[in-house]
């Protein structure tokens, strides 16, 4: 009993600094924000009762899902290769994948804009495939925002997956193959399953960063980008409707938290 109480004390002591910082810098301001959203005319019903604002919320969530899927599909093979590469260059290669994070979001977005204009390389390529109208341009489109966001968030997915895949015991894969599994089946049944924690962590990071992203959606999406962060910015700085902006921020937080929790729960249950 005494041993247990001591352990509890130690755990509380270890948690205290982080909890304190979290409480002061996150919980307290969030509470303030929430209280602000209650001032003045009803803000939550204004948002939730308006199909335009619900569309904005839908756009942001869809953006989060698309970017997460793209980074997962592109990032997993790369992270797997890097984790299994038996070369001293692996570290350098991993470092190279983080390059997009080193460039300012604004500079990176301007570079994408050049590629996305009607006469830009990316738009030209799509026009050449004949799948889009001859004057199609990626700038100002949902797809353009997904591409640009996926580029910057891909390293986060790769680094997260890399660490987890490296931790997967290769002997378990060998054992599976000894028992008759083909390499593909071993990858599916053993490696992927054990790496689920990484998939979950990477997805949550990418999803939360996507739904709250501002600079890239605003620059690539232009005026036609109706996303939550852009709307919050507009209400705060352009229209000075702080209660409404606070309400939108609170709604974004609650919705994305519930999506993240549901996702985590689903993935967690499957692991068991």
């Amino acid at each position, binding site marked *: 009993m005494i041993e247990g109480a001591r352990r509890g004390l130690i755990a509380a002591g270890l948690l205290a600094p982080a909890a304190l910082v979290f409480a002061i810098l996150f919980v307290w301001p969030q509470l303030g924000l929430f209280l602000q959203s209650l001032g003045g005319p009803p803000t939550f019903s204004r948002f939730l009762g308006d199909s335009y604002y619900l569309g904005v919320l839908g756009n942001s969530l869809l953006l989060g899902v698309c970017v997460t899927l793209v980074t997962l599909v592109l990032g997993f093979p790369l992270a797997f290769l890097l984790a299994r590469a038996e070369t001293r260059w692996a570290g350098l290669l991993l470092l190279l994948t983080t390059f997009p994070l080193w460039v300012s979001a604004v500079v990176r977005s*301007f570079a994408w804009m050049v590629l996305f204009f009607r006469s830009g390389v990316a738009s030209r390529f799509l026009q050449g495939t004949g799948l889009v109208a001859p004057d199609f341009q990626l700038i100002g489109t949902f797809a353009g925002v997904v591409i640009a966001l996926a580029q910057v968030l891909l390293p986060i997915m790769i680094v997260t997956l890399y660490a987890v895949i490296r931790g997967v015991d290769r002997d378990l894969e060998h054992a599976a193959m000894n028992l008759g599994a083909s390499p593909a089946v071993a990858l599916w049944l053993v490696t992927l399953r054990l790496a689920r924690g990484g998939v979950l962590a990477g997805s949550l990071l990418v999803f939360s960063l996507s739904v709250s992203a501002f600079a890239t959606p605003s620059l690539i999406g232009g005026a036609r980008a109706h996303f939550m962060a852009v709307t919050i910015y507009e209400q705060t700085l352009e229209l000075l409707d702080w209660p409404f902006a606070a309400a939108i921020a609170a709604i974004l937080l609650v919705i994305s938290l519930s999506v993240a929790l549901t996702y985590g729960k689903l993935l967690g249950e499957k692991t068991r």
Partner: protein
Amino acid sequence: MSRDGFLSRPLTRRTALTAATLPLLAPSARAQQRFTGREIVATAFGGPSQDLIQRLVYDPIARETGARGTQTPLLSANAFARMRAETQAPQIDLFMYSGGQQVAAKAGDLTQKLPDAPNFANVPANLKDADGQWIAWGLVTEGILYRPDKIATPPRSYRDFFKPEFEGHIAFPHITNGYGTDFLVMLAKTFGGSEQNIGPGFEALKRISGRANIFRSAAEVQTLFASGDIWIMPYDGASAMRSKAMGIPVSYAVPEEGAPYVLLTGAVAKRSRNADIASFVLNRHLDPEVQTAIAREIGWAPVNTATQLPPDVAPFMAPTDKLANLDRDAINANRPAWTDRFNREIAR
């Protein structure tokens, strides 16, 4: 708000040259050392314009009159807050505004009458206060920017945005950019509406918005023109001048409906004891040589009608008799409603 972008532009190469030659012009013997030992504190818009004005206005005045000038960078809204907070004991004498705050300042009894100065008479009546409480010393003039290599006949009217050959080559700023709001209002006026009847403006905007590029930030103007896809947009003449300096062929046209504008004004805090120096400082801002230098280096159009702009600068600004006076109070009151409507109907 979003217009503050134009206040922090890099200088061109010619600045040093202009700044070096101007102080040689006409130091008034009459004013010799008459403000010795005194100091004036003024707000400024920061960046290159502040440096230029320090060299062209405050430094020479310090040499000629002994009055030391200190500029402190403050955006207009913050400057107005300071003016109000320090009503009883002002720390700043001269306030420079770009967002129309001088009107509220006068209405709130925060300003005092400026002692008259020779250049004030050359400023048109609509650009200065009838009671002498504030005066404009510069203008940001808006109008139509276009690529002369793509558009043979220079545009003359806001109606030109509806020419079929421009379809797919038009850009315009989002309504949260001040120029975007002014474009909407000018379209309304062109098609029979007004600040009070904005409907025709939205109808007109809807006709071009489908295939137009709607942008948010001032930094995108050059990128859009450089892309080659965009041939025409409503913006300010200074941006055309800057684009041209960067090697992108962009010209400016004053629409026949008039050029909307942003006023740059000066007003003195009510209890300031340095109104005489402030008036002297504003008068120097209005010297034709200084007006020309500000136009050339920063892109702000002169308000002193005696100013003769050189031929490489004049085409990028609207003269004071071609301005369109918009009802800013009505615009500000309607902004939230218009933004909402713009997001739903135009930026789709």
